[in-house]
């Protein structure tokens, strides 16, 4: 053990006292104990997931030698077993994260296994979405009663799958409104997790999954007026970005996933909107205002935009307008462009200019902060814009070629300048 040796050496050289040596040793001892129990938690969860999935696969084999009555009893076995483990955990192992997570995860899969076996025995075609909906509702209380974060994550994934299956992948695709109810039901857990353990990995995974789930499922509200949702998405990304920025960073100094989703989402959506074909579609859509008032898409868009606008105002009041990050106000500008786009083809040019401005602003910010990452992100946005135009047949080859050369030189110069500046500082 090299630490012990080092400490001994330091004590003998009278750099530290014997007391300090002991305290350091104790500290590392405790730390390794903690990581040992963390390993136990990880293996407990992984084990439960594997066993649970295994049971589902074994059930899916469909044992048709057994008569119906025997198979029916089998349908309840994993469920009863999971519930028994759950009760044992509550009574005897309530303080152990590994037991709580493990038993909840096992029971989560047992519920799914049980319902699928019953559907199998009675040949219930029951579409996959209603199967998932029942499963998630029956599993939700486990999250709260056993305080299981992994079950909460599985629940978010399952709810997302429900919405996607129902609204994107089915033959007749009604909006999956119940998804929002499922989502709402998990928010209290997420909130508590965020308040009590802001820096834990569980919180980080929730930060990662929950906003992603909303991004995936926002499109499910489309029911005839899908083009309106472009604004809704842009405002959602605006909200993410502003929320991510005002929570700023957690204690480890990491940015939250919200910032990344907001920033990347905004840029990607802008790039998609830099093509004229979508704007043609928007112009052709005859939007009658009185009809709009009765669509869900319209109200979702309005609510999201108002929230985003509110967050933007708060940010400006708190930090002054000069400190506003370049991505933050994009959604507001985009709404104006969209309204112009309803009547005029000039919108597509405005979007291209907007991307260029955002790219340049981020590049400049990176240069000022002496941050190569931000600098190159800005340059990448400009490069992506140029790449999109590269495949745009409406522009001439000479123009496209010149653009490419200019951006390439820009990349080189900006990075070179910054590195030179750093070198000068260092000297």
């Amino acid at each position, binding site marked *: 053990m090299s630490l012990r040796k080092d400490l001994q050496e330091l004590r003998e050289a009278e750099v530290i006292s014997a007391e300090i040596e002991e305290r350091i040793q104790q500290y590392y001892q405790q730390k390794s104990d903690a990581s040992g129990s963390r390993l136990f938690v990880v293996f407990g969860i992984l084990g439960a997931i594997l066993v649970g999935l295994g049971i*589902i696969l074994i*059930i*899916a*084999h*469909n*044992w*048709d030698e057994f008569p119906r009555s025997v198979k*029916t009893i089998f*349908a*309840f076995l994993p*469920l*009863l077993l999971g*519930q028994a483990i*759950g*009760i044992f955990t*509550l*009574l005897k192992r*309530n303080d152990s994260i590994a037991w709580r997570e493990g038993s909840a995860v096992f029971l989560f899969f047992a*519920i*799914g296994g*049980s*319902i*699928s*076996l*019953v*559907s*199998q*025995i*009675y*040949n*219930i*075609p*029951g579409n*996959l979405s209603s*199967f998932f909906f*029942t499963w998630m509702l*029956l599993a939700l*209380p*486990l999250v709260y*009663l*056993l305080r299981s974060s992994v079950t909460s994550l599985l629940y978010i994934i399952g709810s997302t799958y429900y919405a996607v299956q129902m609204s994107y992948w089915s*033959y*007749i695709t*009604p909006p999956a409104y119940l998804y929002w109810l499922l989502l709402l039901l998990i928010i209290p857990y997420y909130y508590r997790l965020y308040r009590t353990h802001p820096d834990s990995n569980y919180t980080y995974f929730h930060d990662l999954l929950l906003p992603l789930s909303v991004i995936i499922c926002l499109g499910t509200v489309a029911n005839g007026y899908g083009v309106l949702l472009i604004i809704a998405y842009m405002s959602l990304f605006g909200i993410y970005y502003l929320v991510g920025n005002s929570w700023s960073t957690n204690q480890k100094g990491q940015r939250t996933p919200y910032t990344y989703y907001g920033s990347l989402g905004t840029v990607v959506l802008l790039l998609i909107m830099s093509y004229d074909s979508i704007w043609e579609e928007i112009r052709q859509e005859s939007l009658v205002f009185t009809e709009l008032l009765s669509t869900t898409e319209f109200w979702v868009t309005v609510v999201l935009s108002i929230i985003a606008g509110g967050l933007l105002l708060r940010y400006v009041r708190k930090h002054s307008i000069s400190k506003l990050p370049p991505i933050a106000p994009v959604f507001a500008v985009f709404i104006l462009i969209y309204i112009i786009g309803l009547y005029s083809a000039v919108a597509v040019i405005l979007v291209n200019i907007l991307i260029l401005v955002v790219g340049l602003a981020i590049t400049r910010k990176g240069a000022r902060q002496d941050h190569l990452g931000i600098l190159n992100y800005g340059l990448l946005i400009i490069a992506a814009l140029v790449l999109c135009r590269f495949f745009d047949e409406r522009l001439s080859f000479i123009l496209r070629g010149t653009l490419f050369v200019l951006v390439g030189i820009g990349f080189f110069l900006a990075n070179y300048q910054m590195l030179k500046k750093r070198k000068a500082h260092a000297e």
Partner: protein
Amino acid sequence: MLNKKVTLLLFILLALVQLYVPAKMILRREEIIATGSEYKFETAPVDPYDPFRGRYITLNFQETRVPVTDLSDWKEGDVVYAVLGTDEEGLAIFTEALKSPPDTSQDYLTTQVEYIVEHDEKGLVLMLPFNRYYMEEFKAPAAEQAYRDAANSTGREASALVMIKEGEAVLKDVLIDDVPIREYVEKAADDQP
């Protein structure tokens, strides 16, 4: 934080609900099988796959159309109460599409409109909520193959035996030439050299 007793009580309550849902599904199906009326639908089996619930064969029904005189009342995805009858050969057909369950003791099926046929014979094509028949993973592809071979050579008939009660249906068995498909597959496997 909830105290331990309350948590335990809630957990037991949850466990009961978790048991109740599959139990309820089972009891309802058993009731339909025991007391429903039996219909035979002409069909053809194909073999897809569901990652969660295993292998099953999908049934392609011959008769999924119900004649309707006024199509303007209907659109895709509408709930429909389809009254059942039988043709000369004793196979099930749909005779009438209703917006609410029939008052009489006629058998009917509650389902959705899949699409609408506007030319030739006007009518609604229905989604039949019993188009899956689960089989053991190795038997399902064999079942489809056995049916195809048989259909090619002799034009055999496949049919689905469905129990129906109060609009709900349970698929009881799939028959090829009036032999249950499980037995048919086993026989076909034995006959192979």
